[in-house]
């Protein structure tokens, strides 16, 4: 079995209660300090609202928040799905031949250097205020980690397994499906977790650049009218959504590659 594979496995952590507790303590401390500061200092709530004010405002505006969360979620889901398909597609093409790798890889890296602030408005000019430009922007900015993850994964395939399959008469494509792709799956999920956090950020920003609804445009409108409390509430919702999606990748992983996490640590070799 390949060593890369296991190094990869060991670098992962499980997220149990024990792992979360310190983070929660820090968070709670920050919230308390924040609350004390805003009430004692008499700072204008339009500049910095207190956590309690944010909570009350957020609860009052919950239907508006939810109505704007849904489009953002939808864009993220669709853009992210497209990113996965495109990212996987590129990985297959690049893996297939050295020439294609040399031809495509520099362009892909180049695509990741495009400044979002510059291209987001352009894409919206081209495709309008609807959902299409958001999906395209999300896909453009989050397919790359998925491609890289797949490529790393293919390379981690045990050469003994590939050789064995070749002696069994398997074609290159058959070897890819039987050995290279399954080997790459744990790597893919790592790439997925990086990509999912990108996706949300890009969705919000794309909305910021022009949209009719969504958390991004909601934040922009409320900033303009100095409803800082609701801006914070929207940020908290965004964070919550990101964490939920991040956790969902673990659930999906457990579902799709059940052998993987169970094999961690229980194998003497």
């Amino acid at each position, binding site marked *: 079995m390949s060593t890369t594979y296991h190094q990869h496995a060991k670098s992962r952590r499980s997220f149990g209660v024990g792992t979360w507790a310190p983070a929660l303590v820090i968070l709670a401390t920050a919230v308390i300090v924040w609350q004390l500061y805003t009430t004692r200092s008499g700072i204008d709530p339009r500049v910095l609202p207190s956590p309690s004010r944010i909570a009350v405002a957020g609860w009052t505006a919950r239907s508006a928040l939810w109505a704007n969360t849904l489009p953002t979620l939808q864009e993220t889901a669709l853009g992210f799905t497209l990113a996965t398909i495109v990212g996987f597609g590129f990985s297959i093409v690049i893996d297939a031949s050295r020439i294609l790798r040399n031809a495509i890889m520099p362009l892909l890296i180049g695509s990741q250097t495009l400044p979002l602030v510059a291209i987001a408005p352009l894409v919206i000019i081209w495709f309008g205020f609807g959902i299409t430009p958001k999906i395209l922007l999300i896909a453009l900015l989050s397919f790359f980690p998925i491609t890289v993850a797949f490529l790393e994964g293919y390379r981690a395939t045990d050469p003994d397994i590939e050789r*064995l399959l070749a002696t069994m*008469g398997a074609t290159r494509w*058959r070897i890819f499906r039987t050995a290279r792709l399954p080997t790459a799956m744990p790597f893919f999920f790592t790439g997925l977790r990086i990509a999912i956090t990108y996706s949300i950020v890009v969705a919000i920003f794309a909305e910021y650049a022009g949209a009719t609804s969504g958390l991004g445009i909601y934040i922009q409108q409320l900033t303009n009218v100095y409803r800082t409390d609701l801006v914070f509430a929207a940020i908290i919702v965004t964070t919550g959504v990101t964490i939920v999606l991040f956790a969902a990748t673990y659930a999906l992983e457990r579902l799709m590659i059940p*052998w993987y996490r169970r094999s961690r640590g229980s194998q003497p*070799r």
Partner: protein
Amino acid sequence: MNSVGSSISTPKLRVAALTHSYDSLPVLEKVSLTLHHGELVALVGPSGCGKSTMLSILTGAITPHSGRIDLDGTPIARDTAAFAYMPQSDALLPWRRVIDNVTLGLEMHGVRRGEARARVTPLLATFGLDGFARAYPFQLSGGMRQRAALLRTVVQERSIMLLDEPFGALDALSRIEMQTWLEDLWNRHSWSTILITHDIREAVFLADRIYVLSPRPARVIAEVQVPLPRPRSLQTMSHPDFVGIEVQLRDALTSSGAL
């Protein structure tokens, strides 16, 4: 795995004057050997002597510079599926259950899943895997993993099995256990097999005949018959004849500079 009408005198496999080099580095020098039907022949040599090149040539991954390989008296075609190969590592796919690992070769030959499973299932007990069909490889012990890899090799029903240091990764006790188990099984089935090993005792214990290879470039420096009666047991290992052959092999390796 029956001989297809071949006369007893025609060897199952004849390798004649096989020569190969990587760029200017010669690895094989006129290696000739034969394997008769139902025979277990061991290749013993120092590590890095070109045994894996030999394997790559036999499995068709490399075309030798010169030499000839005949199967049942006719030159072997490049795409002949003559060999079932077992690599040094067990090479079990970690995401497949035992049953889907051992049917891998059949699956690659287009045998349908249900039929492949039906062919393998009765053999699970023989290979000490009864009740483990649904287990993942990581749930098996080292010996069980090797037996699963062997079962995967056996069920392909090729004319010749190529075992590349099959027990090299095991601890000493499991290795002896596996060797006696394999000797017994092979004794009952007479599968034509080439066993590559660097373990002299293993070669003597399992083989009918042993070729000793020199350090690179590999040449055959000795061919040793192992006339020890079968079935063999742990007692066989302390038999004077066993020890005598062991010494003979060690001497051959020493004189070639391998030891």
